[in-house]
């Protein structure tokens, strides 16, 4: 009787093929995702810088979340259905940095081009950041420039408002003080006009009209003796 392990060559071949195909994905994955891959991106996370005490530990589950986020971004951008298994991650370091590549949903042995991945990531950058509780600075896709937010400019520059307030107060103050000075002067003039009836100058006019000679050396109008 033949040994149980002495299988026929045909069976051996089939077994070999089955094993090959089973191991293919991981082998392919290992070959597709490697540091400095042509279609891959390096990602750096600075979780402690972003979250301080609330920083989460980078583990398998967090990685899963990252893969899901990228799958979302790719699906959203290319309108194809990407699965988490299409996002391959490798070369993780204690820094928390790693490389990732994206395989096509139709053919897992083929990689999606770098440009498409970049565009997809940029389009959903904010969303990816929020999912991981990070921002553009702490979730770094090496080579992908962050979209810079323009500084918010209000409709009226706020300095003009402060200027308006200050100049309004100062202007009002000037007008008020000038008007009060003019009013005070008018009041004084009215008082003086009433006293002028007894004033010497009026007397002088009268005496001059009476053909007397007015002795101006005793007049009030010029107290300084000419030197």
């Amino acid at each position: 009787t033949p040994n149980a392990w002495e299988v026929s060559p045909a069976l051996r071949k089939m077994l070999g093929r089955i094993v090959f195909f089973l191991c293919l994905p991981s082998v392919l994955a290992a070959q597709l995702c490697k540091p400095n891959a042509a279609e891959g991106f390096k990602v750096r996370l600075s979780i402690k810088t972003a979250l301080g005490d609330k920083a989460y530990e980078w583990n398998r589950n967090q990685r899963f979340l990252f893969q899901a986020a990228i799958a979302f971004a790719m699906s959203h951008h290319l309108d194809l259905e990407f699965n988490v298994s299409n996002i391959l991650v490798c070369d993780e370091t204690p820094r928390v940095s790693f490389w990732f590549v994206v395989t096509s949903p139709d053919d897992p042995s083929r990689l999606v081009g770098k440009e498409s991945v970049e565009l997809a990531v940029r389009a959903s950058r904010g969303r990816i950041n929020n999912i991981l509780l990070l921002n553009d600075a702490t979730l770094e896709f090496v080579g992908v420039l962050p979209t810079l937010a323009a500084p918010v400019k209000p409709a009226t520059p706020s300095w003009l408002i402060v200027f308006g307030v200050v100049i309004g107060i100062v202007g009002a103050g000037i007008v008020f003080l000038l008007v009060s000075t003019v009013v005070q002067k008018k009041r004084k003039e009215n008082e003086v006009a009433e006293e002028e009836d007894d004033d010497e100058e009026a007397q002088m006019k009268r005496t001059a009209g009476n053909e007397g000679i007015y002795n101006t050396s005793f007049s009030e109008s010029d107290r300084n003796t000419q030197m």
Partner: protein
Amino acid sequence: MGEAKNPGTEERPKWDNKVQYLLTCIGFAVGIGNLWRFPYLCQIYGGGAFLIPYLIALVFEGLPLLYLELAIGQRLRMGSIGVWNNISPMLGGVGIASMVVSFLVSMFYNTIIAWVLWYFFNSFQNPLPWSQCPLNANQTGGYSSECEKSTSVNYFWYRETLNITEDIGISGSLQWWMVICLATAWCVIYICFIKGIDSMGKAVYVTATFPYLVLTIFLIRALTLPGATDGLVYLFTPDWEILKKPQVWLDAATQIFFSLSVAFGGLIAFSSYNAERNDCERDALVVGITNSATSLYGSIPIFSILGFKARTNFNTCLEQNILTLTNHFDIAERNMTVENYDQWFDYLNVTHPGDIASLPLRVCDLQNFLDQSASGTGLAFIVFTEAVLEMPGSQVWAVLFFVMLLSLGLSSMFGNIEGVLTPLQELKLVPKWLPHEVLTAIVCLVSFLIGLIFTLGSGNYWVEVFNAYVGSVPLLIIAFCEIVGVAYIYGMKTFSEDIYFMTGRRPNIYWKACWMVISPLMLLVVFVAYVALQAGTYPTYPAWNPNYEDFPQTETKEYPKWVFGIIVALVVVPILSIPVVAVYNLIRCGIKKSSANVSGPNPYSNEAFEIETQERNTQSI
């Protein structure tokens, strides 16, 4: 009796109380320079050691000049033109020179106040506008290149505030935002001066005291900041060797001189509104010592904050290096920190020297950051605004700081304007029917219109020209003429009698020695040294040129010939009046003994009777 009352003109205004007068004089003396010039000098001239030449200059040059001006103003009861005409018609030009210098200085000084106002207006935003770079003009998604190469703080000052051109010859256009800030500054001055010293005396209660309040708040805050002790140690560590350099003594003497604001005519005008029997010796001591004490007091929070800024910059520099190394070697976050940076660096240098050499690591040296000192506008608008960004609650500190600078500047401007208005009325060019308010308005308007030069693109360069040349040599000459005029032409004997009349005691040997010998000698030496230093090299200026190869460093350019001509004019024209008036009077009246003309043609003042009664009173006591 001491005064004639003309019913045609108003009675001479007077201070409400002594405190008003002292605050006005202190406010005039204490200016922005106390904060942004003195600490800088302390720093570059060996810290604590600089205090020695500074105090010597104060005692032998500053205080005597101050006392002299307050005394003659109070005795002769006129502004600078009247006073010098009184002492001797040949010295009449000194008063005119003071007035012209005050006018020129007030124009560019108010531009500085306009800049402070601009920053004040802009401090009410979150985030502060000088904390961010704006995006590129053509929206390509990058920051403006000029801002990237220098810092956002520099960019805000040079581009968004001044919109500076690359050369003093390129005038650019009027910057509208600067024009309205300058207009606001002049309006504020006008409203304070609208009723002469009545309104100004009330304004001064706020402007003279507020800076001390803010300085105290800053002191308390600054001393709690990390790195404050670095700054203070750096500031006050004495370097005794530096006292051997003559430059130090020269700068101490000039600093005291310009800091006390003598020779502007403002102090003479202020003291002329005093009561006749007022102890001006004590006033002079109070004003002089308060001025120096303020400089010292102010330098403590300034340098604490500068130390904080240096420490922050140092930490940022280290953190950049840490990030570079962490990223390159994929070390876990927070393993390498500012504290253990050196050990990590040495370890990595040994294990991976090639990698370290290839990385763009910055050299971080705390001393280097501390050395980045600045004075003048650089300190206030670049260094300090950068430091404020790092402090929690930046808006509050920025607003406080700029309001303090505003108060300091305003109280000094009051003295400058007074130095213009009072002599103007004594020149008898002004018709009597023109009310005081209208005259003040005209002066403010004319100064504003001429001051529009400083709102051009090249305005900052012109401010530097005015600051360096109008506010230096002419003042030295005027002060020298003042002190020689009083000590020798008026006569020390007559002056001593005047002081006896006012304060009840004659000046002691220290004052006399200073007035007759030491101060004029010091002024002469300072003047000669100053001119010798200036005449040695052709004047240059630092230009902000984004196209310069070493940008962001400023490019040193020489002044063009026509600007040099203007510089010479600015120095010569104010003091031209001194010899012109002297020669004119010589020709007109012949040489007459001015000692006969003790207190002017005042027919109602019988001085002999006054002194006699006083002596009789003292004898009877």
